[in-house]
């Protein structure tokens, strides 16, 4: 990776961050009523309003307000949730680990599952298995993820009784060590599967397209001419190149995973950001919702940056001009 690319790519972060700040600032100010209500909520406490007005500089001209707002956001100071009376940054930070565990598991499951399914489907394009996978993907696209979660409860959890349907740990038992991990795993299995299922269609399709395109290339033909089986040529040669697109969309998928996780968590009572968002939505707790927008937006910027840097490191062809 050359330095020129690194510098250019790092500089691209700036307009993205500026966009996020401008859009959220504009929306909070475009909302009907006093912007202090948007930042501080409808608590009605005049003293608190005065405090927040001073803190966010809401009594000063707009450009100055924007600077104050940006400074607050960039230092992680998002104000206080009026429904829970705690700092938004604390509330979010407390719940991020559980959500990341769910998202990470779903990301891993759907990536591995999608690549395997895509490779199997690519063996015989338009064959029975390929058509079955395509049809399943089409249906998968249409199911809302929160309903998929309820269906998983109805069809798997209630029937078999293997999977607990609420929370992250068993409240009655106080496991430690390995038992604790197993307990969490048992609670995690179903939500992670549901979230992965909502993602797997996309990966399958990308893997299939990538593999089909790559298997037509000369180097694969050469490998096969030298006696390698089709599977061998795929695994040892084509797969690396075919899967690059799958890796590059990880950044985009983080956004879907966040919203999907929030909805799935609501159904399974997973103690992550989902419940926080649900209660914030129902109590119109704007500071928390604003915090979520910022969290996800900055995560996307970071994820895209990391993906691009890894990509450039893996593939030396990538550089600017």
């Amino acid at each position, binding site marked *: 990776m050359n330095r020129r690319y690194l510098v250019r790519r790092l500089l691209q972060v700036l307009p993205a961050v500026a966009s996020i700040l401008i859009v959220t600032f504009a*929306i909070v100010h475009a909302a*009907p009523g006093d912007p202090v209500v*948007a930042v501080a909520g409808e608590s009605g406490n005049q003293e608190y309003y005065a405090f927040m007005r001073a803190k966010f500089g809401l009594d000063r001209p707009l450009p100055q307000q924007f600077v104050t707002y940006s400074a607050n956001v960039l230092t992680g100071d998002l104000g206080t949730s009026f429904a829970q009376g705690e700092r938004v940054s604390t509330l979010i930070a407390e719940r991020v680990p559980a959500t990341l565990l769910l998202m990470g598991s779903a990301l891993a499951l759907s990536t591995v599952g999608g690549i395997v399914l895509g490779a199997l489907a690519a063996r015989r394009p338009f064959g029975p298995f390929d058509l079955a996978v395509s049809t399943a993907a089409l249906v998968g696209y*249409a*199911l809302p993820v929160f309903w998929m979660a309820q269906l998983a409860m109805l069809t798997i959890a209630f029937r078999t009784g293997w999977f607990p349907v609420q929370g992250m740990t068993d409240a009655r038992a106080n496991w430690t060590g390995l038992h604790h991990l197993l307990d969490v795993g048992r609670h995690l299995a179903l939500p992670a599967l549901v979230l992965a299922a909502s993602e797997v269609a996309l990966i399958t399709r990308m893997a299939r397209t990538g593999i089909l395109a790559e298997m037509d290339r000369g180097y694969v033909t050469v490998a096969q001419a030298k006696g390698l089986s089709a599977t061998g040529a795929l695994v040892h040669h084509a797969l690396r190149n075919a899967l690059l697109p799958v890796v590059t969309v990880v950044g985009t998928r983080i956004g879907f995973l966040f*919203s999907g996780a929030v909805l799935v968590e609501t159904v399974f009572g997973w103690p992550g950001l989902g419940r926080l968002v649900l209660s914030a939505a129902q109590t119109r707790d704007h500071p928390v*919702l604003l915090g979520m927008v910022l969290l996800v937006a900055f995560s996307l910027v970071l994820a895209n940056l990391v993906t691009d840097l890894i990509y450039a490191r893996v593939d030396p062809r990538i550089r600017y001009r």
Partner: protein
Amino acid sequence: MSTLASATADAAAGAGPVAAPHRWRAALHRFVRHPAGMVGLALTTLVVVAGALAGRVTASDPFRTAGDPLLAPSRAHWMGTDNLGRDMLTSVMHGAKTSMVVVLGVTLLASVIGLAVGVVAGYRGGWVDDLLMRITELFQAVPRFFLVLLIVALFGAGLDNLIYVLAFTSWPTLARVARAEVLSVRDRDYVEAARSIGASDRRIVLRHVLPNVLPTALVVIALTGSRIILLEASLSFLGLGDPTVMSWGYLVSNAQRFLRVAWWMSVFPGLAIALAVLGINLMSDALNDVLAAYSKAPRSARWRRRRSRPASLPAQLPVR
């Protein structure tokens, strides 16, 4: 300008892709012979009919009690009743109406904004293009689902507000696609020819540029529609829908506490969402096959494209 001008312009471009009426008729012929497209059309029609009949063949107020609570599906209540004794079939049909209103309103608004921004940016170029595209990127930098949550919480959850918010956040993809399409035809010979014989910008855009943007735009608009259904359902699932109208997302979230005793409260509204989204996705996919893919590629390339495309899948990422 007379039609002579455009006729000359068409002739100048050889077999230019401007023979619009003929092309649309041919596309229609292909569409009715596209099995997946017809299934999609049937599903979408089913939802539209259900929505149109809500309040006519069913009770006009879906929130009214119609029988005992938690009755399983039976002849009297085809989809059972919910925890408050409301008829689920009535609710689901009223939900179809709500979804229809939202989807129509949002796609209409978003199409106008998206096409206007995309066509102007692509056709004008220069600083206008730069400015409009920077604004489009501004919108795309922020995650849509959470942005919509915040806006609805700030501005209120009435149905009209919901439509504005969803439209306001749904146009960027269309704008980018429309711009790209405009760029691909802007410098074609037939546009050049029309300009050289003095056609106005308005005429060039309406007669020569827009007809070439529409096929692809229609596919994107249909996909926007199916995403809007999912997004509206997610919002009302989280309690951010309009509380005065029935919606599928609300029904599914209401079913949550009764899952163990009343599967029908979850299954029927969820199925309705899935069928509506599937229907529109299948149609947009068929549109892609009969319009976008065929309009540009010569015959041989058409086949190659068909084979390398995965069988019947939406062309773009879904948003949940």
